[in-house]
């Protein structure tokens, strides 16, 4: 029992950290572009599939981990430039458009990769004892890599000029334009970064789960749940929620049937949506485009996605 529980907890944390990377990409794209990216799961799947091909070619997992996300990032670049650019200001249209992209990507992979699931061998075969069970060390390495990437993302957002621009655009788009930030370029690189993160977590997940063309579907929904519960636009919330949810599901499925655990977590999610649509870890005012004009100006001043200086409030262009 104790060993089962320990394995469930460690598994939950490992999987939660992978999910957190996926959700971070989704959330980043939403926070900046206001696009609900239905193709995010497909990009994750694409990352894993690309990794499989790289491994077939070179036999090196670490090379694939570096190359596949860059490839998918390039695809993201093409998608944003070619397709999403013209409809960026219509949230509902972008949902449907990315849904179409998802269908197309899945089918492309089905055509070339085939419908059968394939496995990627663990690049680090070592195991270590966890109570009386042998636990694969690779999973812990995967978790560590996720943490490093998240740290890198944090540094990028907080310490680099591009990160500063991104935060600026999130806070106030008009102001950012007025200050000379190349907003469209920021949009583009954010989408690329989101695609990169999705693919990266796809490669990380590949040795744990099997690789097939449908693997992105359920993941997409889980990522949505995480982003919503954690709060749209709240990056930190996504990480916490991802680990929390996968812990609950992992530990919960020791005691009840896994599908019951899923239904419960979905029910919980509906509750969150109804009671706190802005997410659990966020100030009670949310800034969503669909909100009435009354609530949006107020929240623009009081909600903080990322830290902002009080002076920026004085210069806000929004009517109050």
């Amino acid at each position, binding site marked *: 029992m104790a060993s089962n529980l320990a394995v469930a907890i460690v598994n939950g944390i490992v999987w939660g950290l992978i999910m957190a990377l996926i959700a971070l990409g989704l959330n980043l794209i939403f926070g900046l572009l206001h696009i609900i990216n239905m193709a995010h799961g497909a990009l994750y799947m694409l990352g894993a599939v690309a990794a499989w091909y790289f491994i077939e070619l070179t036999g090196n997992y670490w090379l694939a981990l570096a190359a596949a996300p860059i490839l998918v990032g390039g695809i993201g670049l093409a998608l944003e430039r070619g397709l999403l650019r013209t409809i960026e200001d219509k949230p509902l249209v972008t949902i449907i458009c990315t849904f179409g992209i998802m269908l197309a990507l899945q089918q492309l992979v089905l055509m070339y990769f085939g419908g059968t699931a394939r496995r990627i061998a663990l690049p680090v075969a070592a195991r270590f004892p966890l109570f009386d069970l042998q636990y694969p060390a690779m999973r812990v390495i995967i978790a560590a890599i996720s943490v490093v990437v998240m740290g890198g993302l944090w540094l990028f957002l907080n310490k680099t000029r591009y990160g500063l621009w991104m935060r600026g655009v999130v806070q106030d788009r008009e102001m950012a334009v007025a200050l000379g930030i190349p907003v469209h370029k920021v949009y583009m690189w954010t989408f690329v970064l989101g695609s990169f993160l999705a693919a990266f977590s796809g490669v990380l997940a590949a040795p744990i789960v099997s690789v097939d063309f449908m693997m992105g579907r359920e993941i997409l929904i889980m990522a949505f749940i995480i982003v919503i519960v954690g709060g749209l636009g709240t990056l930190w919330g996504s990480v916490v929620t991802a680990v929390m949810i996968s812990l609950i599901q992992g530990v919960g499925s020791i005691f009840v049937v896994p599908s019951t655990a899923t*239904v419960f977590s979905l029910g919980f999610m509906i509750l969150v949506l109804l009671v706190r649509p802005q997410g659990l870890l966020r100030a009670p005012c949310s800034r969503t485009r669909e909100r009435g004009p009354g609530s949006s100006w107020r929240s623009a001043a009081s909600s903080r996605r990322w830290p902002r200086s009080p002076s920026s409030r004085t210069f806000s262009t929004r009517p109050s």
Partner: protein
Amino acid sequence: MTEILVWVLFAISFDLIFGYTGLLSFGQALFFGLGGYAVAIPILKLGAGTGTGLLLSVLIPALFAVIVGYFSVKLSGIHFVIITIIFALIGSTLGETWAWLTGGADGLVFTAPPIELGFFQLDPADIKSTYYLVLTVTALSYLFLSRLVRSPLGKVFVAIRENEERARLIGYDVQFHKLLSFVIAGGLSGLAGGLYTVALKYASATFLHWSISGHAVVYAIVGGGGTLIGPVLGAGLIMSLEHYLVNLLQATDLVVGAVLVSMLLFAPRGIIGILQGRRK
């Protein structure tokens, strides 16, 4: 052909909620699947007739639509999209789990008893009469919807789509009207699911999956949202495209996705929009 008609019905019911009321619901699959079970389970377990089953396939999904809608219409925009996906997801998870009732992913296979309509008999086992049954029901639903959207009630739906705030200020109960539109669309989606099940003699938990709703979204968008004839055209066109393509290459979804994306980019008002634009 029968299949196309079923999807036409599904697409126009979705268009009522998306094209007219302006709510993007990915949860229609829940009602579609429920409609299927509302036909299959009474016939299989209770020995009910096909007619009763079809009646139930409207009522039961509509009832569920009241429950789901009650919660969903409190949210708007992106949150609404997501909550409808979640409800559909709960439905499909339960559908797969409760295999004793639903047959799980393998589904339920049944034979539909003939419908007695006074002087003549409709036997669902016969492909032709199934076709006429589906044709009649779809045509009646189309007439019902076209009457509905031209009625004062339909105008309120459009008003909500155009400007929710203003509709509220004029004095309409926005939530109630959204719910009403959601329930009507849910009932009709259920009917589509019921007919589909009667035509295929098969109901399955896979019908409950939220991506099924994607079909309706695609048809409505490609054909032209906010019109009734649009989704009909869209469903007809895409379905026939799929039927031809399936022989040429396996990648129907690829083409469907590509068509969807290019329609959104170049003709956001769909085929109808293109036709109208040319006339001007």
